[in-house]
């Protein structure tokens, strides 16, 4: 007997049939062979299960469990587990319960069948049988089973040996997680367990109390009284008593210490008295714990988390942050990693303390380890402030150029946010964004392009600089779509600045018109360009037609070529631009002139988005209008337009208002945009397009003044005056004044300009809003004054009749 015991105490009694099968499976050379072996074995096992009680039941189930672990189906073993659990033999129970934990979970119906067995085994005379039941209940007990057996567990918590008590405690934890209300049941027993000496039981008690306090604030209040007891236990672990069985590298039971620290954290949170009671202890642990090994650092880590979460003294807080600072310098990557995680949590509340370690954190950006890099990035972005923006940005941009792919998008958007909040100058801001676009253009968000364009438009003094930089960037690389889109847009807008060949901020390029057009054409033709990008390029080319002088024909030919492009978007644009050249050439200058400053929308509502919405709404209605050239143009839209040019509030309403399409990117192209564009032309130039009749009211000395009117309402009338200069010399300071009968109200809107270039190159328009509530006979006297060739002129004309619309 004794011999046998000696042998078996090495626990090496092999399970021969099981091990034979394992050997057979492992020696299979192919997957197919393995499947064959397993199928045979499973068939044998199934046959055995069907037989009545035989001696080798447990070895069959063990085999099945092995097969299950390899990933093969084993559900036919579930009932066998139930039977084995009910067996009186310990060996069979052991494997049966193991099988239950592996094959049954609360979702299976069969799991309910073992409830009774568990109940019986919980009161078994042998503690190892009890232990099996407790373990299984804690592993896969469903809510009903938990409710059923909770009183039994409570009984075991109070009156049994340490071995069972510790298991009952963790079983209770599982029950509370499944059925929150049962927490109340276990609270008293949990309280009394704190007096135990056995570490296992203590640990279980602390875990149970933690669970109860986290779930129920009232329970938390009651357990605050245990703080002194917990402090006492900790002190015992930290100071006195070397217990070899609990010692890990000089720390006495670090597992228990960490759990107590966590419980103290929960109890001390938001409570001055409790925090005070634990202050000394925390200071002691923080200073005395040996930090050369991981285990000591685990305890220090938990201590730091606790100190930072409770209402601790400032001295203690500083100590905690310094520990984290020391962690940052530790050779062990794991320590650096968790230091940064913790600093991340407190960067909001203890910002200055964390700032002190900024240098080390930034260094961690260069760490080899991906996890450390990620943490360092998050923390660095959180530490950016107005004072350190320049140096931080240098580091972040450096990081961006070499960072792993999965972090690029996060880094790029973090940099944009930081740049937006703390940019020391506009030029720096633009440079930063350009830098990001060149390094990580493919990973930026979609709104970057409109946001950047808006930023550029608003920085008028840097237009020359920006277009130069973008042109250079375009020449070197056309693969980054965002960058190319912005570059095309800028070249289209500010191409004249590029061609001028002078720039204050940077080395100017000496380019010819052909060079610029070459660059745009390269983008147009490249297979790397996305359709949206090509749209940008085409529109930019078109815009240049008013900014260059010699190569307009080249532009004309480009535009006409794309009139038969396969891409419908491009074709649409090309056809419209063609029309602009052919039929509306006189309007081309006005249509393609410089964009006004874009008003910044409310957050989350970018220009691009609103336009897309607007265009989508309009699309079904206006599709037919693609080529119509005589649209019905309500005067209100014309008013909106002139308001826009006058620089008033942005008219980006979600209606197909013409004004809304103009200042926004041509990204949202559709037939409607084209249609709207021509509508716009119709609105801008009352003659000869609109059906509203115009009358020439004044013609003298080369100056022609025409008038058209449109009825707004019963008593409202909008009059549009257009002036033109057909002499050979320019006219400046051109102003109009108007007078009307007394009962009529008059409101003159701002004129489009005050200079009339020679030979009718451009016109001046001015709108006058009249209100005639008494419906008197409408008359208007207009005074014209201007300067030509150095001398001032003035004249008056009376208008007696208005052409009715």
């Amino acid at each position, binding site marked *: 007997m004794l011999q046998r015991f000696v042998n078996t105490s090495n*626990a090496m009694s092999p399970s021969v049939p099981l091990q034979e099968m394992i050997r057979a499976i492992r020696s299979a050379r192919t997957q197919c062979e393995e499947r064959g072996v397993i199928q045979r074995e499973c068939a044998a096992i199934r046959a055995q299960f069907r037989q009545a009680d035989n001696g080798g039941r447990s070895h069959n189930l063990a085999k099945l469990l092995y097969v299950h672990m390899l990933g093969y189906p084993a559900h036919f073993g579930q009932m066998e587990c139930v039977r084995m659990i009910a067996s009186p033999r310990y060996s069979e129970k052991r494997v049966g319960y193991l099988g239950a934990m592996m094959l049954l979970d609360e979702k299976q119906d069969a799991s309910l069948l073992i409830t009774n067995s568990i109940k019986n085994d919980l009161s078994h005379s042998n503690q190892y049988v009890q232990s099996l039941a407790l373990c299984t209940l804690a592993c896969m007990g469903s809510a009903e089973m938990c409710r059923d057996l909770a009183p039994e567990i409570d009984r075991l918590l109070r009156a049994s040996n340490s071995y069972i008590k510790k298991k009952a405690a963790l079983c209770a934890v599982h029950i509370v997680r499944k059925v929150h209300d049962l927490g109340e049941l276990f609270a008293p027993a949990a309280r009394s367990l704190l007096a135990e000496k056995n570490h296992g039981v203590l640990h279980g008690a602390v875990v149970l109390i933690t669970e109860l306090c986290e779930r129920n604030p009232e329970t938390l209040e009651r357990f605050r009284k245990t703080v002194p007891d917990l402090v006492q236990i900790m002190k015992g672990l930290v100071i006195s008593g070397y217990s070899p069985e609990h010692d890990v590298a000089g720390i006495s039971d670090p597992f228990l210490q960490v759990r107590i620290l966590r419980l103290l954290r929960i109890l001390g949170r938001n409570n001055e008295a409790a925090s005070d009671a634990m202050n000394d202890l925390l200071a002691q642990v923080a200073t005395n714990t040996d930090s050369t090994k991981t285990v000591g650092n685990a305890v220090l880590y938990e201590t730091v988390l606790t100190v930072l979460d409770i209402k601790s003294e400032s001295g203690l807080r500083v100590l905690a942050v310094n520990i984290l600072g020391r962690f940052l310098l530790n050779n062990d990557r794991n320590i650096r990693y968790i230091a940064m995680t913790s600093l991340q949590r407190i960067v909001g509340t203890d910002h200055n303390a964390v700032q002190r370690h900024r240098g080390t954190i930034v260094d961690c950006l260069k760490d080899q380890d991906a996890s450390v890099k990620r943490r360092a990035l998050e923390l660095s972005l959180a530490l950016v402030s107005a004072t350190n923006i320049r140096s931080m940005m240098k580091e972040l941009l450096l990081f961006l150029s070499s960072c792993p792919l999965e972090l690029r998008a996060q880094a790029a958007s973090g940099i944009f946010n930081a740049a937006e909040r703390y940019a020391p100058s506009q030029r720096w801001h633009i440079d930063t964004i350009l830098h990001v676009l060149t390094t990580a253009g493919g990973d930026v968000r979609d709104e970057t392009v409109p946001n950047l364009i808006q930023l550029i438009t608003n920085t008028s003094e840097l237009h020359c600089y920006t277009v130069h930089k973008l042109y250079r960037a375009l020449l070197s690389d056309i693969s980054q779509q965002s960058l190319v889109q912005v570059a095309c847009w800028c070249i289209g807008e500010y191409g004249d600045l590029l061609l001028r060949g002078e720039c204050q901020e940077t080395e100017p390029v000496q380019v010819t018109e052909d060079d610029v057009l070459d660059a745009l054409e390269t983008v147009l033709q490249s297979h790397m360009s996305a359709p949206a990008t090509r749209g940008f390029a085409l529109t930019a080319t078109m815009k240049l037609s008013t900014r260059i002088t010699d190569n307009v024909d080249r532009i004309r030919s480009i535009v006409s070529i794309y009139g038969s492009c396969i891409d419908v978007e491009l074709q649409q644009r090309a056809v419209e631009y063609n029309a602009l050249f052919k039929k509306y050439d006189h309007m081309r200058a006005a249509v393609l002139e410089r964009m006004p400053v874009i008003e910044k929308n409310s957050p989350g509502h970018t220009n691009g988005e609103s336009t897309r919405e607007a265009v989508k709404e309009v699309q079904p209605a206006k599709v037919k209008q693609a080529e119509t050239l005589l649209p019905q143009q309500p005067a209100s839209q014309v008013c909106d337009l002139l308001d826009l040019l006058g620089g008033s509030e942005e008219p980006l309403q979600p209606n197909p208002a013409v004004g809304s399409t103009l200042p926004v990117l041509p990204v949202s192209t559709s037939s409607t945009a084209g249609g709207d564009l021509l509508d716009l032309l119709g609105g801008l130039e009352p003659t000869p397009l609109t059906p509203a009749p115009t009358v020439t009211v004044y013609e003298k000395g080369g100056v022609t003044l025409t008038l058209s009117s449109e009825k707004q309402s019963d008593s409202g009338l909008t009059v549009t005056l257009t002036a033109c200069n057909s002499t050979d010399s320019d006219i400046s300071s051109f102003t109009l004044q108007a007078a009307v009968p007394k009962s009529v109200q008059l409101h003159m809107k701002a004129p489009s300009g005050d200079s009339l270039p020679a030979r009718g190159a451009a016109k001046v328009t001015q709108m006058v809003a009249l209100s005639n509530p008494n419906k008197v006979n409408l008359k208007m006297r207009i005074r014209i004054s201007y300067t030509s060739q150095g001398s001032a002129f003035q004249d008056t004309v009376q208008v007696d009749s208005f052409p009715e619309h």
Partner: protein
Amino acid sequence: MIRFLLLFSRQGKLRLQKWFTPLTDREKKKVIRDMTMLVLPRPPRSSNFVQWRDLKIVYKRYASLYFCAGLEQHDNELLALEVLHRYVELLDKYFGNVCELDIIFNFEKAYFILDEFLMGGEILETSKLAVGATMEEADTLQETMEEYMSKPAY
């Protein structure tokens, strides 16, 4: 709490799986696949912590086996490393210089040891000696009963 504990070889073969929350078979397979893909390609001197979904994954390689645990956000990762280490020590004590083959051929014993060390995703016993002692007694009980019934265990 620990949500799961997995042991797998360098080739990704599963040697032990312990789940502390109920998951369907499909979900379990997905987690296993994700873990092997997450952990195996990592270079040797990386940190032992990885963020995965809403869990913190702590893993450590011992010879040819990867020990991989999934923790919740408030758990202490450094302590989890100690937990993994303690489990390896317990296996080592029990099997005497444990190697992967021991765990393959005696997988049920590995589970029994684990069940004496962890329960419900929490640490059950913090003493190095207690687990070993309990295992001895339980094995003896098994053998005794078998001896009594005069039939081999399995």
